[in-house]
């Protein structure tokens, strides 16, 4: 089965920010960031772009589709 994966946790650690701070920057709740990091929730394209823009990365560098 196809699956979305991401490396938000790694990027967040590199930047030294908490889930709460990332959530504030992209206007979602901390629970949403947690669910995305654990691959339990697939974000909308808009949110995926917002997260990628925040890390200054291309969307495919943050999110991978297998």
């Amino acid at each position: 089965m196809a699956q979305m994966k991401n490396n938000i946790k790694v990027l967040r650690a590199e930047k030294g920010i908490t889930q709460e701070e990332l959530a504030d920057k992209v206007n979602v709740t901390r629970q949403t960031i947690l669910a995305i990091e654990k691959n339990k929730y697939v974000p909308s394209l808009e949110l995926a772009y917002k997260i990628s823009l925040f890390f200054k990365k291309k969307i495919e560098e943050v999110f991978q589709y297998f």
Partner: protein
Amino acid sequence: MSYKNFKLVRLLIVFFLAMTVSIAISMENVLLAVSAIGIGMILMLLIKKNVKAVLVDEMVRNIAGKSALIAYSITVPVLAVLSLVFMFSNLDNEGSYFYNLGLIFSYIALFNMAVYSVAYYYYRKKYGSDEE
């Protein structure tokens, strides 16, 4: 207002509402209960406006949508079946309590279906229209 303070104030409002409504019920005072609920709703709206944290985001809306669909899918068939049972088992006694209950259930089920259809048509038109 931070999210932590919001949760505290929300708890206080719920406590106020529970107290006032229970007092109103014990006093059999409908006006007091309705005013308490009105005041509670206004207070909730006011504090929600002052919260800086995000309370509702796309995941919350997604969950709410799925839950609403499940609730609808269960409620409407259950109401429809119950209304048929109540009405058909009391056909010889049309004015009875159970017959009227069945009638009310069927109207509620129909109202739910009508609201769903209108909402579905609206969103289909909004997102699935052939117009460019």
